[in-house]
């Protein structure tokens, strides 16, 4: 028997888990669900599920344009969610919260609107550890405008390589876009430091907060970013709803992204004028019930306490890192200590492909992700084609980490790697 590392969390895991109906599910073969894929999509508490159900059952109508009681209720619920999200991330005014369908759309909105100002000779700086959704929109913007895409490298330890930052961020730099927490390496990046360098040359800072906002107390008023994208489904909210927070004066100067209903001021056949933010960026009927669900999700996380959730994440990540280090032939991609590190841990296991690991674990009820996690460049950086990723959230228990470690032992014996 190996000894398990010590574990201490400020959360009452039993009562947290009782809020998430799916966590008591049994999978094929009678295995209890061990869900270690929350960086991919989190599970939902019954409070969120019930809020979405109740919205459809009692308040459903279109927002802003329906002149009846239900329309007023739906509008109040949708705009109420905006207030909740604004408070959740520390926005200075509610109009800084733009609802999108996910973080990808939010980043595309940023790249498209900021991209409209780019011209040949301008530079956009991203990082090698970005999710594809914070790479491809900038590649497209540079292709459209003739601007040049550049990027920060990643050190062997999985940290952002800032050694050439002074050259990389220069007077030609117009946009610096980086992730707060890497979805593949788990690295927490020094956003404030990078933002200060970017602002010193007059560049706009875009942050992908998809992995950070669910796990850490994030205050956009002090973060240093100008735009922050995040998504609902990774923070116990519904799918189909994301957020772009932006400084109001920046948003107010940006052109529209998608055209359509509700984003206009006056439409004439000869041309249109556009609504102020956030409506300018919310063309068409928005994801109303999803926004309502996201508001409840944010309130749920606030009720538990983001500081406690972050402390739990840190504790469970430390516990998992220690456990994974006991597995022979296992290599962790990214920081191996829980310092400036989020709770997504990607790893390789000698002699077994990640898909095979994931399938074998799945037959034991352990759900992990296998592949490049939409971050192919950073895998290429480490000379790895694919990896297995375990990721955690406020409901993850040390016993589930134990099940992962035991499962990896079984994987090794099953594939006879020794």
């Amino acid at each position, binding site marked *: 028997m190996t000894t398990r590392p010590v574990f201490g969390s400020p959360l009452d895991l039993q009562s947290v888990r009782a809020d998430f109906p799916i966590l008591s599910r049994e999978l*094929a073969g009678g295995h209890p669900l061990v869900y270690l894929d929350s960086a991919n999509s989190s599970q939902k508490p019954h409070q969120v599920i019930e809020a979405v159900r109740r919205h459809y059952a009692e308040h459903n109508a279109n927002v802003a344009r329906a002149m009846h009681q239900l329309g007023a209720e739906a509008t109040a619920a949708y705009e109420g969610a905006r207030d909740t999200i604004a408070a959740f991330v520390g926005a200075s005014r509610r109009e800084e919260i733009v609802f999108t369908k996910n973080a990808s759309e939010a980043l595309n909105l940023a790249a498209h609107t900021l991209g409209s100002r780019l011209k040949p000779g301008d530079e956009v700086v991203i990082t090698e550890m970005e999710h594809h959704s914070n790479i491809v929109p900038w590649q497209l913007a540079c292709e459209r405008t003739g601007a040049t895409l550049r990027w920060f490298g990643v050190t062997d330890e999985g940290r952002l390589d800032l050694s050439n930052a002074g050259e990389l961020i220069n007077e030609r730099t117009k946009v610096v876009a980086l992730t707060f927490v890497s979805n593949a390496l788990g690295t927490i990046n020094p956003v404030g430091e990078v933002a200060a360098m970017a602002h010193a040359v007059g560049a706009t800072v875009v942050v992908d907060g998809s992995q950070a906002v669910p796990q850490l107390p994030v205050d956009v008023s002090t973060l240093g970013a100008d735009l922050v994208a995040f998504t609902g489904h990774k923070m116990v909210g519904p799918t189909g709803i994301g957020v772009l927070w932006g400084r109001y004066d920046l948003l107010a100067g940006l052109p529209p992204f998608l055209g359509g209903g509700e984003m206009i001021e006056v439409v004439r056949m000869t041309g249109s004028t556009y609504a102020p933010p956030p409506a300018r960026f919310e063309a068409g009927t928005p994801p109303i019930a999803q926004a309502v669900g996201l508001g409840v999700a944010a309130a749920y996380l606030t009720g538990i306490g983001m500081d406690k959730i972050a402390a739990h994440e840190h504790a469970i990540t430390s516990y998992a890192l220690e456990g994974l280090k006991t597995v022979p032939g296992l290599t962790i991609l990214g920081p191996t200590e829980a310092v400036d590190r989020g709770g997504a841990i990607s790893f390789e296991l000698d002699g077994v492909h990640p*898909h*095979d690991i994931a*399938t*074998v674990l799945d*037959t034991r009820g352990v759900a992990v992700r296998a*592949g490049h996690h939409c971050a192919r460049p950073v895998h290429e950086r480490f000379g790895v*084609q694919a990896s297995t990723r375990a990721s955690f959230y406020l409901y993850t228990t040390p016993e589930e980490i134990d099940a992962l470690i035991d499962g990896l032992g079984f994987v090794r014996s099953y*594939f006879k790697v020794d």
Partner: protein
Amino acid sequence: MQLDALYQEIILDHYRNPHHAGLAEPYDVEVHHVNPSCGDEVTLRVSLDGDVVTGVTHQSAGCSISQAATSVMTDLVIGKPVADGMATYEKFLELMQGRGTVEPDEDVLEDGVAFAGVAQFPARVKCALLGWSAWRDATAQALASTNGVLNHEGAGNG
């Protein structure tokens, strides 16, 4: 879900010692196929003589299922008319999409019957089909440029 139904010993054998691995020359057409969702990749070369498959070689990076399926595929198509290989593919596809309800024909699929269990793991079906999709693409291209117009001799870079 029975793990041993998925990882038949035949599959693990092909995974550890894939047949026709390593890219050979000469060849008619080379293709590179990927599974974008997971990153599995295969580079595959095909040689035809008329409508007969004379050679298939591959270099792949991927899981046991994709590697083994590519290995088995090469055994099934080499030395046979293209039409036979395409017919075998149809049988294999039917097996993969059958959710475990299709009884595989060993006379047609040979070692391919070992993949019957994959059909019960929907997430893995695309793994088993990667090598086949590369072969079908390369073969179609080779047929389209009949009589070896594209024949790459010696140091051809494909």
